[in-house]
């Protein structure tokens, strides 16, 4: 049974890290993941990630919020009818304002919940291959591969411009 290792390349340049990701993914050597100090669209494209499911959370939250707003205003107005100035008890135009605000509120909070859930936050266990510099001024490319492929992965990372390559037990 072969052992697995994480081969970690550290890049000063975003373009070089993108190149490394593309090369490693193309080679099929192992699972690739990356770290970046900012949201790099180039890295996200190179990783060919699907769209985040957080979008659905925000949509569902927004719809729930709007419906809750109408349910709250219409329901309570009918339960406790209060006649003011001849206005109808169920006055849709002003209720739209409450529904709108609750749509935004629920949408935003659902987005936060989606980020925490899908981003697996809070997460205090270490992520393989992470280094403190990847949050600051370096881009990290990590490939988890069989021990026998590690040398090849290292070479690919170096050829792409990695200034430092390390191995870590996978």
């Amino acid at each position, binding site marked *: 049974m072969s052992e697995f290792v994480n081969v970690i390349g550290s890049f000063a340049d975003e373009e070089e890290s993108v190149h490394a990701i593309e090369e490693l993914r193309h080679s099929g050597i192992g699972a690739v993941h990356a770290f970046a100090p900012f949201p790099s669209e180039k890295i996200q494209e190179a990783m060919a990630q699907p*769209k985040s499911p957080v979008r659905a959370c925000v949509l569902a939250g927004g719809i729930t919020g709007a419906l809750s707003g109408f349910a709250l205003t219409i329901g309570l107005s009918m339960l406790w009818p209060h006649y003011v100035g001849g206005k109808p008890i169920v006055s849709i135009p002003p209720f739209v304002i409450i529904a709108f605000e609750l749509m935004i*509120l629920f949408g935003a909070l659902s987005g936060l919940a989606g980020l925490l859930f899908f981003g697996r936050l809070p997460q205090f266990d270490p992520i393989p291959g992470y280094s403190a510099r990847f949050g600051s001024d370096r881009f990290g490319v990590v490939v988890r591969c069989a021990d026998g492929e590690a040398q090849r992965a290292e070479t690919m990372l170096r050829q792409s411009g990695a200034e430092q390559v390390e191995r870590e037990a996978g």
Partner: protein
Amino acid sequence: MADALKPTYEDIDRAVMRTLEPPGLGYWLGVGFLATIVLLAIGAWTRQIYEGLGVTGLTQPTMWAIYITNFVFWVGIAHSGTLISAILFLFRTRWRTAVYRAAETMTGFAVITAGLFPLIHLGRSWFFYWLLPYPNERGLQPDFRSPLVWDAFAVSTYLTVSWTFLLVGLIPDVAAAREKSSGWRRQLYTVFALGWRGSDEQWRHFSTVYLLMAGLATPLVISVHSVVSWDFAMAQLPGWHSTIFAPYFVAGAIFSGCAMVMTLLIPMRKLLHLENEITAWHFDNLAKIVLLTSLVVSYAYITESFMTWYSADPFEITTFNMRYWGPYGPLFWLMVFCNCVVPLFLFSPRIRVNLKALFVISIFVNIGMWLERFVIIAGSLTTNFMPSQWAFYHPSLTEITITAGSFAWFLMLFTLFCRVFPIVSMTEVKEGISWLRQALVESYKKAA
């Protein structure tokens, strides 16, 4: 010089992390001074609760005055923070990256400050929850057709969403700060970073949620000040009952908020040594927004007056005559000077990059926009439909102390935040580092 003009990622981290170093005695003296004013205001509020609203200058028919003026002023201040952080994000505006965190922080604290005023104004502050819909046995529910209830929903949503947006945006930055800190700061950043590591998977969800939150915050910010304006416009009172109020208030909010951003950023940039991160380019663009919104506000003043004249409504015309020439007339003309005349200096490109001039102009705008709310709120109430009821309002010492306390409270919270959390977004400045380099070159050219 070459290095200063071409900052690296590491330089940005270093500059921002320097702002998180323990501050000196001067800082604490400043915070202590602000805290003293806050304590005085708390004392004044306590007295008001004990004695009742009689300690204020409120008198029939002017039952809304300085407290509501402060409420509208602070909600307005909050708006430009969301404009810069959310709306300009959606437009991919390049200059926002270095200034949006400060603006967003300003928003968070301005909404908190604004939220205090309805409570203070209530007199019996402990009954604030009567505005909230909750199951009860008293046969009472808030009237959802009332603008005051819309306001409770709008402002509390705005408070929640703006703080959520701020704290989500902070996650990658506090994670970066966590790696470079020790002691209690490291523990604090570890908690706020939620274990963020900046993996591609985390960024994928973060980018999506950030974009969507910006998309939600954009209509929210417009709705909130529209709802605030409807607190007035829905009433039949001359001087308030106008369809122009929503866009007029939103433009005024962005105008005053951007001025407040400049008031805060100019000293902050100097005191925290962020000259290479927040450049003349950023101020130039902020000043352009102030100029544009000043022109919109001036146009609104003219339209409002024109509509009053064109309506031939004697009550409206009387209210406006009193606004121009009555006891509050000098405040109205001072407002016009501050909001319509002084910002015209910003047509000059040289003034737009002269920070001393910008600071002075921003103070004028802050004063002018506070006066605008006072003139609309208290001024319109004093001259209602029945001249026999007219009575002019004069603020009491209690109200003045609480108002001064709100400014001190806001500045104190902002000052404390600046030294605890990264006030410039390292993440976004790095993302747009090429724009910053270009801006620095431009700034040096302008200085030369």
